[in-house]
């Protein structure tokens, strides 16, 4: 029997500077990934020819919006409450915080992504009866046909 590929809504609490913390999604499901990628593109404004292209500035904020569930920043400033807020509201709140704080949180989330990816790789490698690895090279058609 294979493993469950359903992404359960698990979260992880990560520390940031000054004793603050953020709660982030452990991993995104396909729908959340699609929403993040969609938000990583230049928004359509008029006849802007760059609209719809990948935009690294939008991508950083899209990653924050996709992963953030809660944080302690609202303890000192209730206006910064993000739990239960829509992506649109979270985007507006993110735009209102310090630039270096947003970048710090993004770096923490990127490190979290690398940790989860490493865990997945380790799980795959540790599975003794996992999927059969693909052949490194295609089999020769001569072997198949016997010629």
């Amino acid at each position: 029997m294979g493993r469950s590929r359903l992404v359960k809504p698990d979260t992880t609490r990560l520390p940031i500077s000054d004793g603050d913390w953020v709660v982030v999604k452990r991993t995104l499901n396909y729908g959340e990934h699609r929403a993040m990628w969609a938000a990583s593109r230049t928004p359509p404004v008029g006849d802007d020819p760059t609209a719809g292209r990948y935009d690294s500035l939008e991508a950083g904020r899209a990653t924050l919006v996709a992963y953030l569930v809660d944080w302690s920043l609202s303890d000192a400033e209730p206006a910064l409450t993000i739990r239960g807020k829509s992506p649109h509201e979270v985007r507006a709140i993110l735009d209102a915080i310090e630039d270096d704080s947003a970048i710090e949180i993004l770096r923490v989330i990127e490190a979290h992504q690398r940790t989860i990816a490493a865990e997945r790789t380790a799980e795959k490698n540790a599975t003794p009866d996992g999927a059969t690895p693909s052949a490194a090279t295609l089999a020769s058609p001569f072997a198949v046909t016997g010629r």
Partner: protein
Amino acid sequence: MFDAIRLHGTTASLAWGYRSVARLEAWAIVRTEGQWRLTATVSWADRFQCAQAVTRQELLFTAPRDKGQWCWELTGVELGTHSLQGTLGPPLH
């Protein structure tokens, strides 16, 4: 003790972890004979995730109230096109 308690509101949601999996409009919770029961109108629902969450006993009903929110675990749920009926465990907080 009360024989019956009725709570009601105009906005609530069902959550699986951090995910909102249904939005409810008019809702009422009635406690009769020791059992909490929920009825509500549904404005949107992700039926697949609702089913996954209730199967895992991880589906929560949440509704705002003064200084906090109501929160119950749903132990059973029937989703119609625009309506919902559910049975609830004890209130969580």
